[in-house]
């Protein structure tokens, strides 16, 4: 898609994350996200925003462990959007789920509804904001799939950083485009979605869990 074109349903942006390439200690994507989105935080882990986090998962039966980056899964059937009273939570035509911070009233119902705990509430005044992401106290925010970059034709910051500074565990692309690498890989290899049982059809897929 050309930069400057409106989002269209022709695309379905997604991520494919290969957890086997994801180090337990690696937080490159997390740091990249923080830098990109200007999440300076207040050093209050319970209330500071996290758009992406590393979840360490261990199977108690086998002892097998993974480290999984979890961000907004950009569900195709997002409950956050369904419940939002004002329509601030919305899904773009290309599948990216966003919060319109001008009409979000801060009711936090979307946070109640999201099964992935993908959203954060701006609990206080924020500093170090980025021009593309003004953050307002009292509204809800979350991973935007770096929509500002996508619209410029660039991959999300976490994906770029992972490729540059880690093992390139993240693959970004258009799931609707059969020629894209991500679509071919999804068709070819075994991938899963977190809590697929809920039927929300996230746009983020995982390999190796």
């Amino acid at each position, binding site marked *: 898609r050309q930069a400057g074109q409106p989002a269209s349903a022709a695309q379905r942006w997604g991520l494919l994350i290969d957890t086997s390439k994801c180090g337990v200690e690696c937080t490159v994507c997390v740091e990249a996200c923080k830098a990109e989105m200007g999440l300076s935080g207040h050093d209050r*882990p*319970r209330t500071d925003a996290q758009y992406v*986090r590393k979840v360490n998962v261990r199977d*108690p039966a086998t002892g097998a462990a993974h480290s999984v980056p979890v961000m907004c899964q950009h569900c195709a059937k997002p409950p956050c959007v369904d419940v939002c009273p*004002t329509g601030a939570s919305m899904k773009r035509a290309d599948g990216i789920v966003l919060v319109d911070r001008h009409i979000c009233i801060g009711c936090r119902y979307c946070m109640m509804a999201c*099964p992935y705990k993908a959203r954060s509430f701006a*609990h*206080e*005044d924020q500093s170090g904001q980025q021009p593309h992401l003004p953050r307002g106290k009292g509204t809800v925010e979350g991973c935007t799939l770096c929509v500002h970059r996508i619209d410029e034709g660039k991959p999300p910051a976490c994906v770029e950083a992972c490729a540059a500074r880690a093992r390139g565990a993240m693959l970004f692309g258009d799931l609707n485009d059969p020629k894209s690498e991500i679509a071919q890989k999804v068709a070819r290899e075994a991938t899963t979605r977190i*809590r697929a049982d809920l039927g929300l059809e996230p746009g983020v897929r995982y390999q190796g869990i």
Partner: protein
Amino acid sequence: MSAITSYTQVRPYTRGWLALMAGLGAVIAVALGAVWHMEHQGHWVTGMTNQVVWGLPHVFAVFLIVAASGALNVASMGSVFGRVGYQPLGRLSALLAVALLAGGLAVLVLDLGRPDRLSVAMTHFNFKSIFAWNVILYSGFMAVVAAYLWTMMDWRAKRFYKPAALAAFGWRLILTTGTGCIFGFLAAREAYGAAVMAPLFIAMSFAYGLAAFILVLSLSFKMTRRSMGDALPARLVRLLGLFVAANLYFTALHHVTQLYFAGRSGVEAFILWNGGIHTALFWGGQVGLGGILPLAVAYGGCGHAPRKRAMMASVMVVLGGLAQVWVIVIGGQAWPLDLFPGMEASSTFADGHVHDYAPSAWEVMLGLGGIAIALVVTTLGITALRLLPAHLGEATGSCRSPD
């Protein structure tokens, strides 16, 4: 002697009236101060976090809203179900419904991240959202109940009385169902997501609403020295017992269903067994104080006068009700979301372990402010309009003061 009730206003500006209003006003002022602080600082000063996103204000708000619809019950008993004995109480019942709803909504609105955007909420509707529907349901409830009240008060509107009563009754059932659905629709939260939430909420509303009604009725009668007799409180407390029993029944049903669901045993064990404060509040508050004890008081007969029994049972139901809503709202959030069923998880974002929540003083103030708002609205209502019966049961002396 007379089948016709006379209603009188409460006399304003008496010492007691002023003291009451000043007291409630102070509580509201403190609450507004707390709101200002929370809004100014941001919500980090509260106990709420990115894990427990709804806190004590929501406990109060949900309690008040649920009670609001239940408070209308007494009026419905009189007009929809033709129980003549309840008819004199209809006006107060309708007023209390509006007042409690106003208090609950005030808390809800003042806890928003952006309460200043209330007008946005009133103009932008996402019709898929049950929450948005609730905005309509709430405002509609106010209007319907106001109309209902009018038909009770103005003889010219008598012929609309029945239809208005029916409309209000229907509306309140939908309203409570709607409130229940706010939780029922949260499929991802294991504590909710069950169809019995709707009937459970209706049973809760019956019990809380009646308890609030009994308290307000008794206190207002006591403070304005109106006579009540024993028959009515006796009847009310029996009715309260019935509602409490229904509430217990649906609670049991809810938990049994939960246990039956695969994979919900964790959260059930948490609430029922090892959830610390939540378990304590469940057994001690919700079941004990709000369920078994009032049942005992209502039916066991503890030797006190009916009016006293009614008061005692109502206080218990209110406290137990707050505990119940706590268990539902907070307890339900404290149990972590399970992203990877069957796996152990941990993260910097508190995945995989129980979330703790300790309410801040600000939230307590806001919650109490909601109750104070409901009481102020009630007091203003019975001061401005003839809503309170001059007496119930046999009239004694009749030295009525001017309104």
